[in-house]
């Protein structure tokens, strides 16, 4: 197989799936269920995941003239994104049932969106990153407004769209300046160019602007302002997706740009990351404290989690990348799981919005409640869940890098965080008192597909907490692969002064 095809195999499959869905959609009678389309999308996603697995055995693949680089790092993020999309799809099958005629487009958009995200993670060319970013962004903009006729839905959509484009402009500006500073938009070329650049301040500015743009995408404070509103208005499965998959992709890009593209300025950007991390954690958690709306609360929570993830950027490269990879995986698993539960509970009609609406869930739907509780506990960071080990891993890396106080801030924040997660949890498990929760009685029994999706997320969260060894090794492998590739590229760029040691195990 040509390396070009091989390198974009998952993306290719997903694109084709998307097109297939689009083409199949008109073939279905207008009033019939759109579930078959969903199943096509699911099949495609599974195939994409499998193909990503297939990629891994080829080591690092460079394709399309160095535009993309499929290494362990990319594959890891492919997995994360693919898995998130899979869970979202499984959970969405029933979501649109009987409500919207455009479910088909939804599946297609999911496929296309994930193509964009996956491309982001494996591209080392900023142009490619930009295109990927736009694909994923635009598809999420659209999906945010999918509950049509709902004022909140379209409001969420327009807010996300306008502010997202606003931030994209910053990102582009940063890319432009990076291009100006180094004459290239390839990450390795940038890294190489920075060593000899005559305009370091231009480079700083470039990085800052890129960080602003990506910071927006990962909803790091102070670029988080859009998050609560958008999450609140968007349909639950979409929030589950957009709070994890595009974020993971954006983090992948961020990791590549910072650690691979701008490694020589780490002393500068790690300070910035320190501040962003501390701010995100604090603002996210404080903001969530008094939220009544569950999705809004989880939006703040996702801001806080972005903060925890940013902590990893202050660590040494090897630790940092590994920790960030691992944390992204755990975060994706637990957050998409939580939203999958919420999808099941609230449904298209948004039956349950506020915390009070969840009162008594524990009695009415014990399994859903237990799963929600489990995901919430993982988000808190309770041991034997992925959230705990992820946090542990990130803070280990940070402390190893000497950032003890950041770790203190972070862990204190996780204490504050308990407060609001527990409030939801407590509501779930207290006796139903008010008629507010009566709407829960309309809950449909949960379908097999949704159950499979939930189980997938739960098993992943649990496995990442109890037996994280495999995932940790994978994350370290990913970290390793990027750093090795970085070293190799540096050697290739300037063979004369190549004294790099490629043995990154020796920490």
């Amino acid at each position, binding site marked *: 197989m040509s390396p070009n095809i091989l390198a*974009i195999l998952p993306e290719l499959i997903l694109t084709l799936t998307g097109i297939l869905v*689009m083409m199949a959609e008109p073939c279905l009678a207008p009033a019939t269920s759109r579930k078959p389309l969903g199943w096509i999308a699911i099949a495609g996603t599974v195939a994409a995941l499998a193909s990503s697995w297939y990629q891994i055995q080829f080591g690092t693949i460079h394709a*399309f003239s160095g535009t993309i680089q499929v290494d362990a790092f990319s594959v890891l993020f492919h997995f994360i994104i693919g898995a998130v999309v899979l869970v979202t799809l499984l959970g969405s099958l029933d979501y649109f049932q009987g409500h919207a005629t*455009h479910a088909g*487009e939804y599946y297609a958009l999911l496929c296309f969106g994930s193509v964009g995200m996956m491309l982001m993670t494996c591209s080392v060319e900023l142009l490619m990153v930009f295109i990927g970013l736009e694909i994923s962004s635009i598809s999420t903009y659209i999906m945010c407004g999918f509950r049509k006729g709902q004022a909140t839905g379209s409001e969420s959509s327009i807010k996300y769209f306008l502010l997202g484009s606003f931030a994209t402009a910053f990102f582009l500006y940063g890319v432009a300046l990076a291009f100006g500073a180094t004459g290239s938009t390839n990450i390795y070329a940038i890294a190489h160019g920075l060593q000899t650049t005559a305009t370091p301040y231009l480079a*700083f500015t470039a990085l800052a602007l890129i960080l602003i743009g990506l910071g927006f995408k990962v909803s790091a404070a102070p670029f988080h302002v859009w998050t609560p509103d958008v999450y609140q208005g968007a349909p639950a499965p979409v929030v589950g997706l957009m709070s994890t998959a595009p974020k993971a992709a954006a983090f992948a890009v961020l990791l590549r740009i910072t650690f691979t593209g701008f490694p020589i300025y780490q002393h500068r950007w790690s300070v910035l990351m320190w501040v962003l991390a501390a701010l995100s954690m604090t603002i996210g958690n404080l903001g969530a404290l008094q939220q009544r709306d569950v999705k809004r609360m989880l939006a703040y929570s996702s801001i806080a989690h972005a903060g925890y993830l940013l902590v990893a950027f202050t660590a040494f490269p090897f630790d940092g990348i590994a920790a960030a990879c691992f944390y992204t995986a755990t975060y994706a698993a637990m957050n998409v799981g939580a939203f999958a539960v919420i999808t099941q509970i609230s449904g298209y009609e948004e039956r349950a919005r506020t915390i009070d609406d969840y009162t008594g869930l524990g009695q009415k739907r014990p399994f859903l409640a237990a799963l929600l509780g489990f995901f919430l506990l993982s988000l808190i960071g309770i041991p034997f869940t992925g959230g705990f080990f992820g946090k542990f891993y990130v803070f280990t890396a940070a402390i190893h890098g000497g950032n003890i106080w950041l770790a203190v801030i972070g862990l204190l924040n996780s204490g504050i965080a308990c407060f609001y997660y527990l409030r939801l949890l407590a509501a779930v498990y207290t006796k139903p008192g008010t008629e507010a929760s009566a709407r829960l009685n309309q809950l449909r029994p949960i379908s097999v597909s949704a159950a499979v999706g939930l189980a997938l997320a739960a098993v992943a969260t649990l496995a990442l907490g109890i037996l994280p060894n495999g995932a940790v090794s994978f994350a370290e492998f990913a970290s390793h692969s990027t750093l090795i590739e970085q070293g190799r590229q540096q050697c290739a760029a300037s063979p004369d002064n190549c004294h790099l040691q490629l043995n990154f195990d020796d920490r």
Partner: protein
Amino acid sequence: MQLALFIIFGVLAVAGALNLLLQRHPINSALSLVVVMMSLAVLYWSLGAEFLAAAQVIVYSGAIMVFFVFVIMLLNAGEEERTTGSRAAYLVGFPGAAAIFCLLSFVFLSERRALGTTNIGGYLNHLTSNISEISTVLFTKLLLPFEVTSVLILVAILGAVVLARKEQ
């Protein structure tokens, strides 16, 4: 020549941008934006990007702005009301915008020597044209982005259809 073009069309662009800012009717703003784009097209040309200059006129001014105007007309948008929905935009946003400008200018000015100057007519030797070089790069080195853009456009079409379609 270079300087003249820069000054004339630079001022025109800024004026257009300011006009966009100050005009209260969307149509006027849209037309101001067209002015900006046209000015920029000239500047592109002066920087040796003939293809882009053309694309700017055709795609941006021609297609996108027409689309804007079309929607303005469609929605029958009148003059915008001066509502006061946000104090933060003034108290926080303007200082922010000003600070961004100052910081960027500071950086550009402090690096101005390293950045050098322009010369009219482009930089390429005259053996190959600008367009052919662009196409070479576009279809070799940057083939994948080009291809993937199709997905982007597909998504956009899909989205536009879904969002703008009336529910039955």
